């Protein structure tokens, strides 16, 4: 039903592309991250939950049609619906059914609960196209409560020393998840980088409860940040923007922080393991929960996951994407471009 083309994943029966990387006539968008939502297509279909963020990313002129989760559209005999993917606000899996054959495109997803978006729902299908960003068994997430508790303790220790704490988090999704995790933490004002603030406003308008924030850019000159928490995108690291914060402890919230070397390479004081993608056990469990007999693996450790699934007797294939070698950093860079 689906095939890979130079423009992206294509359904010829319905004549639609899913997350195309080049402009097309009709595009279904799984979520608003830069590697999935590209400019220039004539018509977009996406989830209502993520409508506001997608609008921010694609601009006022984009022709976006929004559907509710579970609501199905029939295009040339193909029944298409969106199912929550649990990745970020509005993230969706795309379910396509044609003559009893069911395909699901996961987009990016996680199965851990996240107060900033609808929870992932496993969908039974014949063919499952899954991401594999963290497709190695070294990636097993600790409970997020533990991560947030660690983050609060780190902030409290810095605050006691009169030091500011800065968390790097991807501007779309991760930053808001951190803000939700810090709700009721007794932390004073949380300051945000402009890139984070804009999307945070979108989240609030979409009805997501987040810790109150204030954009750094809106602060008067001479504001002191000692003891405060700041959330900024990773691209702010090493920039002169940081100078104003004085004595500073830096941390990064990301699944990559699971590995010590990843933290050390960035010379961070702290790494918090917090991911919006499935870890290894959840990836393998989800694949088996779909009951799919055929699995296409994209976006990450494709070859490794394919080999593991084949050893288990599944018909697994690797699907190259335009974003070869892309990791969570890819979308983050795109994030910056989109709101600059």
């Amino acid at each position: 039903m689906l095939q890979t083309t130079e423009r992206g994943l294509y359904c010829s029966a319905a004549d639609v592309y899913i997350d195309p990387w080049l402009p097309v006539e009709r595009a279904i968008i799984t979520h608003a991250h830069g590697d999935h939502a590209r400019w220039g297509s004539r018509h977009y279909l996406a989830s209502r939950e993520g409508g506001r963020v997608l609008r921010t990313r694609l601009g006022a002129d984009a022709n976006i049609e929004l559907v509710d989760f579970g609501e199905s559209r029939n295009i040339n005999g193909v029944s298409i619906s969106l199912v929550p993917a649990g990745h970020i606000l509005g993230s969706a899996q795309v379910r396509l059914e044609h003559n009893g054959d069911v395909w699901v495109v996961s987009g990016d997803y996680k199965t851990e609960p996240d107060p900033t978006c609808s929870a992932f729902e496993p969908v039974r299908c014949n063919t499952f196209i899954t991401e594999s960003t963290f497709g190695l068994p070294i990636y097993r997430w600790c409970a997020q409560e533990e991560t947030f508790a660690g983050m609060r303790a780190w902030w409290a220790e810095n605050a006691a020393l009169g030091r500011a704490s800065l968390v790097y988090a991807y501007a779309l999704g991760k930053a808001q998840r951190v803000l939700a995790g810090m709700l009721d933490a007794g932390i004073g004002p949380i300051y945000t980088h402009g890139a984070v603030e804009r999307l945070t406003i979108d989240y609030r308008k979409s009805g997501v409860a987040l810790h109150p924030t204030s954009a750094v850019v809106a602060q008067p000159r001479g504001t002191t940040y000692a003891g405060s928490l700041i959330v900024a995108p990773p691209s702010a690291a090493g920039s002169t923007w940081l100078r104003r914060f004085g004595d500073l402890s830096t941390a990064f919230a990301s699944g990559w922080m699971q590995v010590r070397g990843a933290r050390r390479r960035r010379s961070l004081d702290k790494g918090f393991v917090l991911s919006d993608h499935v870890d290894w056990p959840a990836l393998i469990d989800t694949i088996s929960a779909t009951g799919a007999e055929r699995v296409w693996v994209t976006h990450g450790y494709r070859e490794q996951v394919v080999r593991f699934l084949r050893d288990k007797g599944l018909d697994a294939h690797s699907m190259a994407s335009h974003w070869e070698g892309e990791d969570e950093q890819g979308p983050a860079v795109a994030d910056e471009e989109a709101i600059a």
Partner: protein
Amino acid sequence: MKRFAQLYSAIDSTTSTNRKVDAMAEYFASAAPADAAWAVYFLSGGRPKRLIGVRRVAEWAMAESGVPPWLFEECYHAVGDLAETIALLLPDHVAPHALLPRPLHDWVENVLLPLGNMSEDEQRQAVLNAWRQLDGTERFVWNKLITGSFRVGVSGQLVVRALARASNIDEGVIAHRLSGHWTPTAESFSALIEPDSSDADRSRPFPFYLAYALEGELESLGNPAQWQAEWKWDGIRSQVIRRDGQTYIWTRGGELATDRFPEIVAAANALPDGTVLDGEIMPWMNGAAMPFAQLQRRIGRKKLGPRILAEVPIVLIAYDLLELEGRDMRAAPLTVRRAALANICQCDDGRPERVSRHERSEGPALLLSPIITLQTWSDARAAHAGSRDHRAEGLMLKRLDSEYGVGRRKGSWWKWKVQPFSVDAVMIYAQPGHGRRALLHTDYTFAVRDGDALVPFAKAYSGLTDTEIRELDAWIRRHTIEKFGPVRHVEPVHVFELHFEGIQHSPRHKSGVAVRFPRIARWRTDKTASEADTIETLRTLLEAAK
């Protein structure tokens, strides 16, 4: 163990030296002496003899976590550290163990050290038990300890600073107490931070004062008249101690080597009591240095027979005096120490190498390091250019008013090495490394061209970045011509710039030469194998080095 693992994390998670020292000081001030002793040992780079091969540990971890070998290897590639890969893959505890937490010294003395005398099966049981009792970071630290790969970003000097901070004792005193044969026991730790500084152990050397590599221009050092230059010898840096009618020789590596150098002992026995000399042990014949390889040959001998003693005579080239009549001289200016040194060695402070030029190999075993006086910096440049003629690796520059410091301090002592020899060579063999790199091909053999043939002449295993090593490893796996056990014969494609410190004739090597300290300077991706250097290049270097 938990506290030690926390200390590890604290050190590892900050880039600030001061915070590292604080974390250690806090640990030393509050930990039980038996634990603190082992922490000092491990943090300053101590390593029990290799207990378990890391490969074996990896196999047990695969079995315990149910991860197949190929997937384990993929994980290792992503992590870059075996101990960490294992810690990340081990299954979580099914139920929290009811055992009491065990302190570091208990783990080390009752589990880790006995591993060396166990059968493989007993080792496996012991390691699995340990894994089941330890959590995340503890497991990681444990894996590092049992495979002898524990490393954390602190130097011995920072440990000394932390101990000084925790105990309010002078850094120099701590360093002095730590040098030599320090054993990690509760008693030694307590003695280490004991306020009373009348140290009983008379054999103790002083911590060696180390020089930094000269970075800028000579002119930046100021007035040349305030400096003295000496040859930078390529031997074994050592202290010769004469106290209470006994002689001791300590190498910079912390080894008590008295019985290895009877010539020096004989000479030192004539020194007055309460004398400590700092100098270089050198193979020396007919008033000139011999190649380092000769010294290595002598060190390699278990027994020093008359033949090797005659073939490779040894001298101490003394360059500093640290103790005189039992008094610590280190705070005195260099000129004062040097005058006293000349006096005590009963040499006139001229050019002792000249004095001894006509001597046979039985000449004096105690020489004074010649001083090259500098009127201008050009004098230093001229001397530097002639280093190799003296079999020296360059110059040492010391401020005349400098004290003998502790550890490595910037400012008053500089080493200025001559450029290494350099050759562009082709990689032809590769084999896996050891320790954390056991799964990557990191040991390479290099060849030069000889007509259409390639002649191997050097092995090197350092100098590449982790990324380059991985890239090369992937390439090696895909371009192997032949395998001999772990060694892969690879396509002769990649060219590397090799540096080495010395070159000499060697009939044992196919190429006819042996090189010293070969290392990879860079990967010459801009060159093809046909552009690599030839055997002629090596012969020319050999000729020039004679």
